[in-house]
C-alpha cells in the first residue's frame, strides 16, 4: 500500500476520537449515578442518626 503510514495515522486518529466519544458519556453517567447513590446513603445515615434528637 502506498502512503501506508499516512493512511494508518488517519484511521488511528478516527478510531481514537470515536473511542473517546464512546467512553466519555459512559463515565459521566457512571459518575452521576455514583453521586446519587452517595447522596441517598448520606441522607439515610442522617435520618437514622439520633444525634439531633437527643
Amino acid at each position, binding site marked *: *500500500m*502506498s*502512503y*501506508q503510514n*499516512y*493512511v494508518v*495515522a*488517519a*484511521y488511528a*486518529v*478516527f478510531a481514537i*476520537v*470515536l473511542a*473517546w*466519544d*464512546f467512553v*466519555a*458519556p*459512559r463515565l*459521566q*453517567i457512571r459518575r*452521576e*449515578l*455514583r*453521586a*446519587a*447513590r452517595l*447522596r*441517598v446513603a448520606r441522607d439515610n445515615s442522617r435520618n437514622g442518626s439520633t444525634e439531633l434528637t437527643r
Partner: protein
Amino acid sequence: MNPVVRWFHQLGSPPYFDRFAQRWTPWAYGLAVLVMAYGLYGALFMVPADYQQGDSFRILYIHVPSAWMSMAIFALMAIYAAIALVWRIKLCEILAMACAPIGAAFTLVTLVTGSIWGKPMWGTWWDWDPRLTTELILLFLYLGVIGLYNAIDDRRAAARAAGLLAIVGVALLPVIHYSVTWWNSLHQGQTISLFGKSHMDPSMLPPLFAMIVATKLWFIGSLLARARADNLRREAGKDWVRKLAGAMQ
C-alpha cells in the same frame, strides 16, 4: 391526542427520556458499528487505489463523512438551541449542548485527517486556505459553546448563553460550504454529490455512503448517551434519579 404529539410531550419528561435514551443508545451504536465495519472494509480493501493519489485517497472515507457531520451537527445544535430559546423546552437545551462535544470531535477528525492527507498530496501539513481556516473557526466555535456552557453554574442560563452562540455561529456554515467556490482555494471543489452527478468512479462510492450512514448512526448513539448524562446531572437529587441509582447498585 395524536400519538406522535403525545410521544413528543412524553419525551420532554426527564425520567421518560432517560429510559428512552437507555433503550435506544445500544441499538444506534450497534448499527453504527455494523455499517462502519462494512464501510471501513470497503474503504481499505475493496476499492481500487486512485490513479493519481495512490492509497492516500482512502483517507477520504473518514475525512468526508466527518466533515459533513461537523457541519450538520452544528446546524442541528443551532436548531435545538433556537427551539430551547423560543419555547423553553429543557430537553432541547440538553440535546443542543450534547451536540457540541460530538461536533467538536468530528471537526477535529476532519482537520487532522485532512492535514495527514495534505502532507503527501500538497506537501504541507497546513495551509491558511479558506476551507481549512473556516473549518478551524468551526472547531473554535464548538469549543466556545462547550466552554460557555461549563462556565456558568446555572444550567439553564448556561444553555441559553451557549445556545445563542450556536445560533450566531450557524452563519459560518454557508461560508465553509461555499469557500471552495467563492475563493481561489487549494482545497478541491465538490466531487461528491448525494443527488447530482459525483466526480468519483461509482466503484468507489458504496463504502463512502456506508461511512456517511454509519457516522450519522454513531452521532445518534452518542447524542442519546451524552444527553442522558446531562439529564442525570441536572436532575440529581430528584426521586427518580435516586431510585435509578439505588436500582443499579
